[in-house]
């Protein structure tokens, strides 16, 4: 449920799915990633700007026999709407990568991530807005000397007042 935070602010919770192509160096490990996104956006009445939080998790299972990979991130960012439909966002925050190789080793690396999104919002039901969009994210894990580069699509649904 959207929550009034006082003085015209509204918080819109959202949930969605995303799918990315992985390229660059990290493409040597996996060429895709897909998962879920939870989020919340705080908006002021009448302003095109919003502040947002996004939590992504993308499990990957095609990295090898008995091996699994999961990418997760928590980002804060700003969002801007142009008109009723077009919306763009820039986020930055922390990331984690958990890689397990059967019973041999499980290792978690931490890093930082930045992403940009461009989406198209439309009303799908009363108090319910969907966004389809594209995004690009770069992540650097402290143990690596390369960036994880991902580009993909997302679909999310947000509850509005």
């Amino acid at each position, binding site marked *: 449920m959207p929550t009034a935070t006082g003085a015209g602010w509204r918080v819109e919770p959202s949930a969605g799915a995303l799918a990315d192509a992985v390229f*660059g*160096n*990290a*493409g*040597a*490990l996996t*060429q895709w990633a897909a998962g879920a996104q939870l989020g919340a956006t705080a908006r002021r009445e009448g302003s095109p700007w919003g502040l947002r939080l996004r939590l992504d998790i993308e499990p990957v299972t095609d*990295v*090898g026999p008995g*091996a699994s990979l999961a990418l997760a991130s928590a980002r804060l960012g700003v969002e801007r709407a142009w008109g009723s439909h077009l919306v763009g966002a820039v986020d930055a925050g922390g990331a984690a990568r958990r*890689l*397990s*190789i059967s019973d*041999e*080793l*499980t*290792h978690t*690396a931490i890093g930082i991530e930045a992403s940009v999104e461009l989406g198209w919002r439309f009303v799908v039901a009363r108090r319910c807005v969907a966004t389809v969009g594209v995004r690009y994210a770069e992540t650097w*894990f402290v*143990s*690596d*000397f*390369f*960036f994880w580069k991902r580009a993909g699509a997302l679909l999310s649904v947000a509850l509005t007042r």
Partner: protein
Amino acid sequence: MIPLEPTRAFSPWTFSVLVGVLAALLGGCGDLPDGQQLESPHFRYHARADAVLDPGIMERLERHRTEIDTFYGVESGPIDYYLYRDRDDFTASSPCPPSSGCTNGRSVYAYAPLFEHELVHALFADAGEPALVVQEGLAQYAACIQPELGGGGVPEQWPGNVEGPDYAFGESLVSWMLTTGGPTRFVRFYGDSLTTRDPAVFALQFERFWGHRLADVAGELQDARFAGSSCPCTAPALPADGSAVSFTARQDYRTVDVAQESRLELRNGGGQLVYPYACANALVDGPYYLPDRPPSSGSLTVAHVGAGRYGVIGFSGTVSIGQKQTAQSDWSCEAAAANPIDARGRDVTAWATADVASGQTWMALRLEGPRTIDMLTAETAYEVCPACPTRAGPTVGCVDFASTATSDNYIVTPPASGIVFVSVRMNPSYFDPLPLSAGVRLRVSP
């Protein structure tokens, strides 16, 4: 699918440069040595204007490049070698973090005229930029002038060794890969491997490529086959007629082919230590115990060697080495007594290469006074006796390292003249089961 030649976002060296830039901003800008420059087909050698350069340096660099490139099947692009005046100049002016040298792509920064480890990095710069454990492992492994001792360490600790990275672990891992797949496959993996310290990322790529669990391979690395540096050993051979050849220690090397188990005598007019190592698997960890003392007027290394090709290197200074080989299979004290070595007036080294060092090697030396004895390789077991020990028990008057060594790892024998009997062997309790070279140096006491 793994791309054959992944692009690199940024290199480990970038971090070093950032540190260097910050240091330069805080402490004044450094400058690259470029007062004089030598050029050869594949090298540009930059030095301070007042530096006195070895006229043979470019030929040695080219020879080293040819040796490595030919063996591994890579073709290195032109290399810039920046020679600093000394450690102080290097520390103040180089873009490297605190060290004795570093490499950025095909640029080497060092204050040694030929820094073999960094040169290997530069020679492989165009082949890829793999996980750090592979980069450093190769630089340790591909050594002709300064062989390094590898080691798998505790197998269960391999993730930490990858993360470190542990250079010795990397050296043994490179040895395993070359033994398993040969140079061509290794170089392909070198290009494929991502630049990372993450043990899981590295293990995933390693296992996809080699088809072996890294945890299992880490257990295999205990094997002595994977413990040493390796050199193609294409340097010129020491003349068989015993005539001497001069070169700068730690900058060059020579080779010796030994047809059968032999006594190899290396006479060095320069006085400093010289010693042989097996080209295929140099199980010598270097004479790191050797105190820095003035050389005597001449020295002799008497080595017990098996069949094979050996590299011959010097510890410091300019060496002038002549060789003599004598086939010998009986290394008992009694056999040594029948053929004593004249060690009067010069430093003498008793040496046993790793392939034969697990057995006891006796040598009889003719001396004329007290000697200071330095243990040269890790925990060599040795004795110095006035006579051959009897089977009934220990001979009175023998000294050994375990009971008499000082904290500096040397002992001083009492005044002795005539024949003394020296035995050396690898101490099996130290690094079991790895066979290592064993050696002691009997210096003429002042």
